[in-house]
């Protein structure tokens, strides 16, 4: 059943991605000042939402672990963080390529970019910490605490374009109350791409969670083997 859901979701995501790529490259026009490069937004924005949203959701599961000591919450949190880290890397890389073309530099130490990089580093540290600790409950407890720090930073990243006016543009979507919002058709395409990439993220998280389950099974069998 689980595999059927995965395949159905993968087929839906693939069809949607093909449709979105067609719209992005052949239907939408160039931006007046930026030319064709603005199209990178159609991937930069969904990846950003999935990266930051994933970190925040994972932090909630980490808090649930700390409250209830249920290792399943720890597995869910770790799976979501790993996948979110991939999307956060996409945000940093696509943003950097976009900046090189528009700003003339690969990187600027402004509030949005710097807080996002810190967020990525915190969660990369989270994964490294998990690899370093063998004992499951100690690993879950310590990594949950790190996740809370990262979750707070993820909220700062999200709000940074409203709180600080630095290099990174302010909100451009109507939903965020942008004064100078981008055309509706561009926004709708971004939302369609968000849907496609969300399906992809769900697939990756489901696969990762299955692997976490197998890891737990291996750990318990090892303990059983050593108890004889």
């Amino acid at each position, binding site marked *: 059943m689980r595999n059927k859901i995965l395949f159905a979701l993968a087929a839906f995501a693939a069809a949607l991605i093909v449709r979105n790529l067609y719209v992005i490259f052949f239907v939408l026009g160039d931006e007046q000042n930026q030319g064709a*490069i603005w199209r990178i937004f159609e991937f*930069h924005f969904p990846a950003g939402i999935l990266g930051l949203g994933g970190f925040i959701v994972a932090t909630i599961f980490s808090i649930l672990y700390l409250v209830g000591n249920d290792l399943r919450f720890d597995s869910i949190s770790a799976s979501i963080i790993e996948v979110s880290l991939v999307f956060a890397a996409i945000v940093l*890389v696509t943003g950097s*390529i976009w900046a090189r073309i528009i700003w003339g530099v690969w990187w600027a130490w402004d509030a949005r970019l710097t807080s996002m990089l810190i967020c990525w580093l915190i969660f990369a540290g989270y994964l490294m910490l998990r690899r370093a600790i063998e004992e499951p409950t100690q690993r879950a407890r310590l990594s949950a605490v790190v996740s809370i720090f990262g979750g707070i930073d993820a909220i700062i990243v999200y709000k940074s374009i409203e709180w600080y006016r630095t290099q990174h543009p302010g909100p451009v979507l109507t939903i965020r109350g942008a004064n100078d919002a981008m055309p509706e058709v561009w926004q709708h395409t971004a939302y369609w791409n968000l849907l496609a990439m969300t399906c992809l993220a769900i697939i*990756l998280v489901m*696969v990762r969670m299955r692997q976490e389950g197998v890891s737990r*099974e*291996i750990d318990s*069998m090892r303990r059983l*083997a050593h108890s004889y």
Partner: protein
Amino acid sequence: MFYGFSAAWLIVIIYVVLLALREGKLRRELDRVRQMVEKR
């Protein structure tokens, strides 16, 4: 623009490959531990 799109998809593809490699490694490890338990 194409560099941006290529970079985004390259990151996803690399992660999917790593995920698949890990899946195989975990399956082999599970079989090994199962055999170890059965022998005991």
